[in-house]
């Protein structure tokens, strides 16, 4: 076990675009979940009034749709950055193509989830399990865009939604698409809960400054870990 007084080095892990992406995405997800849930289960707070005085439900839907566009382009940008960003932002972090990535995932499950041992995981960016989970969320993002814009295609003849017009017939009708879209929303909610807990958990245990890293970009990493990373002698080099 490494001592807590091991010299630390500040590493610039998250570049500005990544941080922007993260917070825009977070804002979008929260907005989309809240408005989406309301669209699925509108509260009954209006009674005895007439339609022409009100448009709140239309507004909720409008916010949902606008946010969806922001979310979509933000997501596209992040995919782009996966090919041009720094090594921690690159796509190969997220897709476990290497044996050692799977091994590291097992390690993380043992150490952080099941807490069987107290070994330390030496990742500077995301550990392999976290990366893989992010990869899965990317798939959910993709599905959410497909199903969302698929449904939206019936309401808009503009170019972008029309690119998704095939989704509804492909999945066998709007009802199925709506159901998938709704179930995936719960995927976001569950992810958000676990994500926030784990960030605080890692700060609590490892004190590497995970939480603030998404604001400032810097993480505090033990000297030896950084050295091994720089010399490419770390246990699981992700770079291809």
């Amino acid at each position, binding site marked *: *076990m490494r001592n*807590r*007084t091991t*010299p*630390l*080095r*500040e590493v*610039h892990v998250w570049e500005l675009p990544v941080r922007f992406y993260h917070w825009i995405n977070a804002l979008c997800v929260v907005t989309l979940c809240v408005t989406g849930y309301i669209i*699925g*289960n*509108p509260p*009954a*707070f*209006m*009674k005895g*009034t*007439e*339609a*022409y005085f*009100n*448009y*709140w*439900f*239309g507004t*909720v*839907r409008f916010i949902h749709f606008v946010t969806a566009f922001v979310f979509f382009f933000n997501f596209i940008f992040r995919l782009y950055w996966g090919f041009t960003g720094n090594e921690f932002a690159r796509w190969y972090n997220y897709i476990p193509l290497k044996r050692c990535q799977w091994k590291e995932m097992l390690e993380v499950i043992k150490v952080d*989830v099941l*807490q069987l041992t*107290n070994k330390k995981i030496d990742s500077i960016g995301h550990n392999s399990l976290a990366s893989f989970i992010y990869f899965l969320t990317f798939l959910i993002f993709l599905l959410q865009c497909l199903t969302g814009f698929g449904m939206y295609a*019936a*309401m808009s003849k503009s170019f972008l939604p029309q690119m998704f*017009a*095939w989704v*509804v*017939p*492909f999945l*066998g*009708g*709007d*009802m*199925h*698409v*709506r*159901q998938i879209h*709704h*179930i995936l*929303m*719960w995927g976001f*909610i*569950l992810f958000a*809960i*676990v994500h926030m*807990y784990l960030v605080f*958990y890692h700060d*609590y*245990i490892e*004190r590497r400054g995970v939480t603030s890293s998404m604001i400032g970009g*810097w993480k*505090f990493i033990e*000297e030896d870990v950084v050295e091994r990373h720089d010399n490419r002698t770390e246990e699981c080099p992700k770079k291809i």
Partner: protein
Amino acid sequence: MENQRPTFYEELRGKGVSRRDFIKFCTTMAAFMGLEASGVAQIAKAFETKPRLPVIWFHFQECTCCSESFIRASHPIVADIILDKISLDYQETLMAASGAPAEAAYKAVMEKHPGEYIVMVEGSIPTENEAYCCIGGRSALQILQEAVKNCKAVVAWGNCASAGCVQAASPNPTGAKPVHKVISGKPVINVQGCPPIADVMAGVVVHLLTFDRIPQLDGMSRPKAFYSRRVHDTCYRRANFDAGLFVESFDDEGAKRGYCLYKMGCKGPVTYNSCGIIKWNDSVSYPIQSGHPCIGCAEEGFWDNGPFYQHLPGVAGFGIETTADKVGLGLGIGTAVGIAAHAVVTNVRKHKEIINEPEAGSEVETKKV
């Protein structure tokens, strides 16, 4: 022989329909099909010059609601003229002959007009055991496959022929399949609905006759002329939806004021049909206008998208009224409990690491890279 067949227009005149009424009829049909005024002339021309189109109409696993709807077509002269116009040579509900002479009627069409006749199908086809639907000792599948071999096109009436409808609902005990799943090589027009709106049926027939081609179809082979809009987007109660005014229970104050039926499980937002535009039975009303949520009868598999009176479908294996939200909430609570447990275990198992942290104010060497 065929060239001597009277045209539709000649027939109309023979029936005492004036030129003026005829043009009026064409205008109505054109309006239905969304044509410009110039299209009226095209329709009129089609009827004046085209010979009558032979049609064979089969009934398989069905309830005859499509035939019933068809005879409700409501424009002044559609009900009987369309019947004559398309030379309906085999139609079990209406035809005079029974038994062998009846079968002879459609066989004669197949022999006399190869490549010209239209096959219209009402009902699904059982595949679990062909004997689940037999007519004249032959199975539905045998009859259909033989009849479509030389046909021009197939019109699949209603949800049964387009998507299997009620008999194909889980667990589909007879293996009921729609037309397009049991034949190949012929264009199939799915005229969806349970039943389709009478005037939509008439409109599809008129489209075939007028333009002599298959109407433009959507991704599920439904004519775009009638199925390109969601019931929701053409619903007269839509303003209430946008205003967030919902019926909370049947016959409540909102229901009496015509609020949106979204929360009563209305499937208008996921259903493509012309209910809100053409409406039913001479445009008298449609389900939502009469206070009942749309059950989505023009959509594939709508029977299994229920229960009807809730917005989201039930989740299989969780019982009545269990929606994705209930499952999601359950998982959310489960996650929270898991997290709490994990946090407790962390404090116990990683106790050493946590107290091993440096004292406040102690210096730790840091370097920027």
